[in-house]
């Protein structure tokens, strides 16, 4: 298991390097000039100096290696400095956003909490709703509960977040003014009232994202439970006189959770992708919104870094899912 983990970790490195190269090459085709929004009154020789300072005229491989050095070497050092208070990265060049004119990672750190709060909570809520629904649907297969569950998860699959989100705004923010339609990021939670406000403004985006998670996971949970319910060990457990509760929640559930746990791990990056749209609807200024504004503003370093961070998340979650699968299921041994 350990050798497998190490091998997978080592394999992840070339994959990530290749992905970063692909993203870089794709962005390299961008027609936009980063200096296009500078005033026309700048003399050409100053403009040329600015281009040189940004390194725009150097060949592609030099720019890629510089970005890679900044991402894999300088930024971790900055992080170490920030944690330990040392000065390793004193005069190193960090990745600078063209749009904000400050280091990309500083802005990402500013935006991360909003995304994590909304997306993380939504995922948690989705998982917590999906598991019981899946269990009951499987146990009472073809009952009305199962039929309704199937229908609702079909709707969760089919109604895209940009419609369900807008629909929620129309119903719960305009027709019934219960929740705000815009996420107020400047809100400081320091007493009970502002905490309540925070909960209220998080409700709608969390609901929209949770609906999608629930739809996928509850189906998966149901299928996995159904697979296990017909096994011999279930009959044995019943024959031994176990109560239905113990059979279901101890014996069957534990075995059914094996694939579900890996699916939960695999779903984490996709929910970040879905958050791009949800954040746009509710005006949450998280990572997704940052990516969209960066794309509109032609802010290539920001787009490159953010896209790569999403890729890292995907590769990491795949890895975690595979390792979890091996750990939870003794029948699967990778060695």
């Amino acid at each position, binding site marked *: 298991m350990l050798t497998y983990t190490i091998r997978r970790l080592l394999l992840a490195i070339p*994959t990530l390097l*290749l*992905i970063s190269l*692909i*993203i870089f090459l*794709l*962005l390299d*085709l*961008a*027609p936009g000039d980063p200096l296009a929004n500078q005033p026309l009154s700048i003399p050409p020789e100053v403009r040329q100096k600015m281009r040189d300072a940004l390194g725009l005229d150097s060949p592609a491989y030099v720019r890629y290696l510089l970005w890679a050095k900044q991402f894999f070497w300088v930024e971790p050092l900055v992080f170490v400095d920030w944690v330990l208070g040392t000065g390793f990265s004193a005069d190193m060049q960090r990745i600078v956003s063209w749009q904000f004119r400050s280091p990309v990672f500083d802005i990402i750190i500013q935006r991360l909490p909003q995304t994590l709060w909304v997306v993380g909570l939504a995922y948690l809520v989705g998982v917590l709703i999906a598991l019981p629904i899946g269990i009951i649907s499987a146990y009472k297969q073809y009952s009305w509960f199962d039929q309704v569950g199937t229908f609702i998860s*079909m*709707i969760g*699959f*089919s*109604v*895209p977040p*940009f*419609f369900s989100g*807008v*629909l929620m*705004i*129309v119903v719960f923010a*305009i*027709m019934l003014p219960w929740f705000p339609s815009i996420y107020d990021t400047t809100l400081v939670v320091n007493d009970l009232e502002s905490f309540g406000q925070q909960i209220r403004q998080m409700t709608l985006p969390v609901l929209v994202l949770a609906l999608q998670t629930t739809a996928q996971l509850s189906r998966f949970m149901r299928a996995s439970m159904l697979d296990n319910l017909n096994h011999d060990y279930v009959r044995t457990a019943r024959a031994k006189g176990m109560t239905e509760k113990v059979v279901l929640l101890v014996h069957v559930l534990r075995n059914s959770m094996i694939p579900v746990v890996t699916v939960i791990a695999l779903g984490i*990056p996709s929910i970040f*992708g879905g958050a*791009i*749209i949800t954040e*746009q609807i509710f005006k949450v200024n998280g990572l997704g919104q940052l*990516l*969209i504004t960066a*794309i*509109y503003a*032609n802010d290539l370093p920001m*787009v490159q870094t*953010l*896209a790569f961070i*999403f*890729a890292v*998340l*995907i*590769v990491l979650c*795949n890895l975690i899912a595979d390792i979890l699968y091996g750990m939870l299921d003794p029948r699967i041994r990778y060695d």
Partner: protein
Amino acid sequence: MTDQPMAKPIPRDTSGRSQWWDVWDQFKTHKGALFGAGVFLFILLAVTLGPLVWTIEPTFIDIRARNSGPSLAHPFGTDQLGRDILARMMAGGQVSIAVGLTAMAISVFLGALIGVVAGFFRRLDGMLMGLTDLFLALPLLPLLLVMVMLFRETLSRSFGPEMGTFILIVSAIGITSWMQTARIVRGEVLALKEREFVLAARSIGTPSRRMILRHILPNVLSPIMVSATLGIATAIITESALSFLGLGFPPDFPTWGRLLFDAIDYLQQYPERVFWPGLAISLTVLSVNYIGDGLRDALDPRIRGR
């Protein structure tokens, strides 16, 4: 079919039933799928034949009738420029469904090709599946957005704004959504290769190309068809998401996603305007998903006939 007619054809079922009748019989028993097929057919007819009946031009601006509610002249009302929303819905549906079908065709073609080649030729398997894994690890929505941003201008210049965007979006969605099909098809092909009829075909010296076309492809048709139906749904959603983020078709060219995006600005005053395009997208996707569900059951010979 064969190069020379057989001397004496094997006596077949005289009723002339092919296996597709069995598939249809099984499909009919799935109520959701039948209903989904009906709804999808209705939407398809509405957007293709509808403009022949409802002859108002979707781009016709009647500024005096702007922002009017539902009436006989405009059953769905008009938008902020006085354009008829029903006509725009039909025009938008044509584009959305065309994007869905074309993108699905590209993605299924790529997926089936890569899946069959990877499953059939062992030497290429490692490389092609590595490519598939790599694509699965790419952050697709951000990359789609980036691709649209980068190539929109260039393609618009060479093919015109509408056609250029269409080509761009369709190929971008196709290129980023073939991986699941490829994986499923490869698995099926690997299993098929161990079967006796493949061995028999190989032992009489069938070349690889004929082997794939005659023996492998017809047998992996069912997973391909299922992923094709589901692919339509994902393609429509992705196109609408791109339009919704403002990176889809140009503003005067309606698609369902674009109509939804435009209606967001008037959410406070006219919330019903968001409803129609959203409902159309959701209904189409829902019906297509149900069709896929029914097809999966109908094409599975283990379930069929039970």
